[in-house]
């Protein structure tokens, strides 16, 4: 039944092309920014809530930055139930002897053998790159964002002048890049190399453990907390997601503001669509009366109007996010030069699946925005059609 009216729905949209276009563009713009913002927040949030409960972060109990003696590492890595582990040590410095804020880098040194297993998103690192990483002591793997920002190329060597005093300079060789996403701006180096080069084999910043089961992870966490409670330094053990959550909680206010803005974006879309639909309903009162005279039920008419709105909303939503996804893909592939405005896309690439979601969202917005104007057509009186329209 409804299918038969689709023609009328489409043609009605062509009635006032300017209005349809304006409404569509309004939704496109809002959906585009919505897609960008929610993509960022949902990535952050999924790290917090969707975290893997078998992954534990071991760090110093009390103070930040955390320093864990290296002797702890071998003790903890040997514990039953630990499937895999890595250490994290962050080396901050500048690329030039004279520090410049935009040439500051943080190199994350890790246990070389478990690079792929312990860092989500690095699983797909090609074997040949991984082999080279294992065989090159001064190797670094760099995220695409950082590569672009610093204008580096594979094979290049660079020196990081440590920000601490007394200064330590460490030389690195870029042997490959890692996929975008979470590690888009990261620089990975080998812990054994950093320890040698910086003459600090005494400590690491944190230990990451992958435990065989959730049950064992919980057990291990409490065992470790207890065992290291009275040692110097003491340790704290938390799941990876709890660790992320702790840092994210410092920005709760920002996240809440963003959530409010996202809600406003949605309401704004509904308002724009609703306004446009109301105007066109008002202009088409006579036509609706005629349809009713011909035997159309109020529901038919309401559904056609809602259909129009959902169609515009859905298509506009898909176009808006489609544009964002294209920009995101092109940025990742390097077709669009990296600039201030698009570098965040390396960190938070918008997946193509978002286009589908945005289509649904747009249709939902269309539905919400058109229900009331569509209901208003009930008030159109068929008996007025002869009398008043002259």
């Amino acid at each position, binding site marked *: 039944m409804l299918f038969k009216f689709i023609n009328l729905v489409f043609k009605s949209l062509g009635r006032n092309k300017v209005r349809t276009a304006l409404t569509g563009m309004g939704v496109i713009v809002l959906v585009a920014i919505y897609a960008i913002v929610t993509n960022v927040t949902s990535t952050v949030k999924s790290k917090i809530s969707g975290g893997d409960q078998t992954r534990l972060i071991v760090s110093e109990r009390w103070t930040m930055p955390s320093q864990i003696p290296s002797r702890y590492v071998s003790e903890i890595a040997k514990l039953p139930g630990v499937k895999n582990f890595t250490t994290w040590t962050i080396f901050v410095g500048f690329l030039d002897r004279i520090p410049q804020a935009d040439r500051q880098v943080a190199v994350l040194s890790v246990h070389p053998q478990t690079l792929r297993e312990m860092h989500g998103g690095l699983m797909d690192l090609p074997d040949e790159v991984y082999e080279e990483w294992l065989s090159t002591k001064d190797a670094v793997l760099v995220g695409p964002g950082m590569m672009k920002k610093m204008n580096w190329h594979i094979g290049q060597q660079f020196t990081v002048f*440590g920000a601490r005093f007394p200064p330590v300079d460490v030389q690195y060789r870029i042997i490959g890049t890692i996929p975008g996403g979470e590690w888009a701006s990261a620089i990975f180096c080998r812990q054994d190399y950093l320890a040698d080069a910086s003459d600090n084999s005494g400590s690491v910043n944190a230990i990451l453990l992958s435990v065989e089961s959730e049950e064992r992870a919980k057990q291990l966490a409490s065992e470790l907390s207890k065992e290291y409670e009275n040692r110097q330094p003491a340790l704290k053990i938390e799941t990876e997601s709890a660790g992320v959550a702790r840092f994210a909680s*410092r920005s709760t206010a920002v996240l809440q503001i963003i959530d409010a803005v996202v809600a406003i*974006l949605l*309401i704004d879309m509904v308002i*724009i669509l609703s306004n446009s639909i109301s105007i066109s309903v008002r202009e088409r009162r006579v036509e609706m009366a005629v349809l009713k005279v011909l035997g159309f039920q109020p529901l038919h008419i309401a559904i056609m109007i809602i259909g129009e709105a959902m169609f515009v909303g859905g298509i506009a939503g898909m176009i808006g996010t489609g544009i964002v996804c294209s920009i995101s893909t092109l940025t990742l592939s390097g077709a669009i030069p990296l600039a201030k405005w698009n570098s965040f896309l390396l960190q938070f690439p918008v997946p193509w699946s978002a286009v589908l979601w945005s289509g649904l969202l747009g249709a939902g917005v269309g539905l919400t925005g058109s229900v009331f104007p569509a209901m208003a057509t009930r008030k159109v009186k068929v008996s007025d059609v002869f009398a008043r329209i002259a």
Partner: protein
Amino acid sequence: MIPVKYNARNLVVRWKTTLMTASGFTLVVAALVVMLAFVEGVQQVCTTSGEPQNVIVLAKGNNDEVFSQLDTRSGREIERTKGIARRGDGQMLASREIFLVMHRHLESANVFKFLQVRGVEPVAFDVHTQVKITGGRNFRPNQSEIIIGSGVQREHELAIGDSMALGRKQWKVVGIFTANGTAFESEVWCDQSELASQFRREGVFSSMVVRTDSPAQAAEVVERLKDSRSLVCNPMTETEYYSKQAAQTEMITAAAWVIAWFMGIGAIFGVMNTMFAAIGQRRKDIAVLRILGFKPYEILISFLLEAILISIVGGFLGIMIGMVVNGFSRSTAVGSREVEFAFKVTQTTITFAAGFSISMGILGGLLPALSVVRVQPLEALK
């Protein structure tokens, strides 16, 4: 000129559409005001935290107290610098401070929460003059006593008499202080040497804050420290130090404007719809006005004014709604620390928001208004 009354009446007659269009503006403007109030609030905390006649000295290469470590020798060198003020009793106003970001375990929620602890000597209260104990009393050295800022009191739900674990000791809250709404209010203060021994920081400290007699003196002290041959350190005025911490808010400001403009463009399309429809409905009016002798540009301006009128109504409501957050306290990360801040809707923000709203009105109204010129009077009256 066509009287504005004509437009106002029309807006009132089509009040549903007017309100709906205006509410698009209202939301955008309200969002902008809240976002800017957030930034202003954080910046306010950061810019007022530093006192212009104080100089903070950090270890070379460090811009943040959390990572900085100075030793006693450097401390003595710094104190030898000319220009440091003295207290009435002759005590030099140079405060060695240990600043630690600690993890406090909240038993109730089984999570770790950040807590900023500053170990100070008594002279610190004469260097950071904004800090005032408002409840309880000051801590006594070696008694495991702490005083907490009012922000900590709120965020960590602590009160005088409570105790909490820091390291292996239980510390007792004996006092509460305020600091003029600055970043210090988000800190816990305690005795420096007691904190040092608890966390293996004997002989080292994070920073040294020295007080001078005037901002000009402070600048001189900074220069002297930088030029010193015997000392390698990173000195800066306290004001500069805290302002640098606020630098990241610039990114938030930029993001806020980007988001606001995107939303604004959405609203502009909305107002264009409304205005095109309004003009469509009033083609006859336009024709009559033309026949009465009004010039096309006068009619154009009249319709543009109508769009602006909508944006003024919407913008005004938006600013009103945005103002609601004014003064609302929250905490957020700034650099490596968390600070308590209050949303602050400033005059500048209001001016920007109003300007923003009106420019949306103009942009949205212009194209439809231009279409008025194309209305052929006789054609329209048929």
